[in-house]
């Protein structure tokens, strides 16, 4: 439907943000990059651009994915658009000392090539203000443990999409237990064949059915962890 050309720079802030939500939904990367720059030029803090424009927009995408309205191709396009905006914001967020939500190490387990879900979670977590270290696919237990020692994250995220690789998440958790470090981390697991019972049975803190749930769960656990370690009055 051909309608009036939208000139992003002519939109007031509130309309521009709503337009960005639409453009994220439609996976329009150049438009998102332009709009992020516009808001920064208008004096918005990088953190405000991140939360009000990008994170809110991706939450809509995440919800429609959860509800079976969008599918993987559309979400990948949206994530790609978000990535364009994040590339501009990331250095500025560090410079301006924006609030940090926490840190996550994430990876797909040994033998599993699938990384769509894992990538979506990584994107959404970054979008929500978490620092994410992505180990990629096919990770043996040693790779996870090395990364935990090196990065000292709050959260370990593991993904598996195959019947043959799902049990490997338990291998990793059991090894963490044996080394006495299991309780130092929040362990979140995900992947199409999994379910909540499975997550509990292998000793994870939670199973997250999709990227939007992963962000909500991570926020809740990190808040709880911070409450626990807060100095007593």
């Amino acid at each position: 439907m051909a309608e009036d050309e939208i000139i992003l720079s002519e939109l007031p802030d509130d309309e521009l943000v709503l337009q960005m939500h639409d453009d994220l939904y439609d996976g329009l990367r150049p438009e998102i990059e332009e709009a992020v720059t516009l808001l920064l030029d208008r004096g918005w803090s990088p953190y405000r651009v991140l939360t009000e424009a990008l994170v809110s927009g991706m939450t809509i995408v995440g919800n429609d994915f959860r509800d079976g309205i969008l599918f993987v191709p559309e979400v990948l396009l949206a994530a790609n658009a978000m990535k364009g905006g994040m590339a501009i914001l990331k250095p500025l967020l560090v410079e301006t000392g924006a609030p940090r939500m926490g840190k996550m190490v994430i990876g797909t387990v040994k033998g599993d090539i699938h990384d769509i879900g894992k990538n979506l979670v990584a994107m959404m977590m970054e979008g929500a203000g978490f620092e994410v270290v992505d180990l990629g696919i096919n990770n043996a237990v040693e790779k996870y443990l090395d990364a935990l020692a090196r990065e000292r994250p709050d959260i370990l995220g593991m993904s598996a999409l195959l019947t043959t690789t799902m049990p490997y998440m338990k291998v990793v958790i059991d090894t963490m237990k044996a080394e006495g470090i299991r309780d130092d981390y929040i362990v979140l697991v995900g992947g199409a064949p999994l379910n909540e019972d499975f997550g509990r049975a292998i000793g994870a803190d939670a199973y997250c059915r999709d990227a939007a749930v992963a962000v909500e769960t991570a926020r809740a656990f990190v808040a709880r962890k911070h409450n626990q370690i807060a100095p007593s009055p």
Partner: protein
Amino acid sequence: MITAATPDALSALLATRDWLLADGATGTTLFNMGLGSGDAPELWNVDHPGRIRTLYAGPVAAGSDIFLTNSFGGTAARLKLHDAQRRVAEVNRAAAEIARDVADTAGRRVVVAGSMGPTGEIMAPMGTLTPALATEMFHQQADALRDGGVDVLWVETISAPEEYAAAAEAARLAGMPWCGTMSFDTAGRTMMGTTTADMVKLVARLAHPPLAFGANCGVGASDLLRTVLGFAAQGPERPVIAKGNAGIPKFVDGHIHYDGTPALMAAYAVLARDAGARIIGGCCGTTPEHLRAMRAALEDTPPGPRPTLEGITAALGGFSSLADGTGPATAPPRDRRRRRT
């Protein structure tokens, strides 16, 4: 090669029977034989041929008319994870040769189907896999399975229509008949959003169409039957395949256990036939014990009317999503401020 005078083994068997029993799980069975989590099942074709023979003998003894080779992850893209990308011909040929021998000594006609699973890569433009590259990887695997003696190629667990089409082209290049199933695991559609109606249309327009098509894996037996009903509603010309999981995975005593009982899978098999499937089997978690119960139920139960959705949930439990994704969207389309041109 396929000629009019000598039909392929699967077509010949289909011509004599109303339904055929396929096989069950490969991965879960190999775990129970000691496969390490994360290790490549396909390498066992060379390293532990005796165990693969035992794997194949299970469904054959349980009454399967068709069984799949241990080559699901046998494309170069998948073997690369185990640094075995140069062993595609070797491991696939071995998978097929062992299977051929098991079938030929079964004492009845059993069809060997050469399993070909997804590459795991995302198709362009979202990902990096081009149709040409996907076809090349499948073709390499298909040639080896053919040389090892499979009767038919069996493409399974596909989610992207482009990848399904690439496998069809590979089968054509290998001069082989094939069957192909997709996995409908996301709100009634494949992960990539393909509906049952989309798949029926896709199959109809392929230059080298499959002998039979359908669904495998996914989310439990109920969902799979709803998917079969979706195919049947399109009135497809070709036989429909139903290969569902034996329930959903649980972790029990250090093992993956699918919670569907043999009785449940027997009920599923009969409902699948009544829903319109002609090739019926299991997928993850389906053991020879399940297959025996399925075979007995198919033989002993007279054909019934096409089941309703209510009948399916009453017999097998609820669906994982409200709708099967073929109808109007469950929510109104997102109201845009203005549409871009």
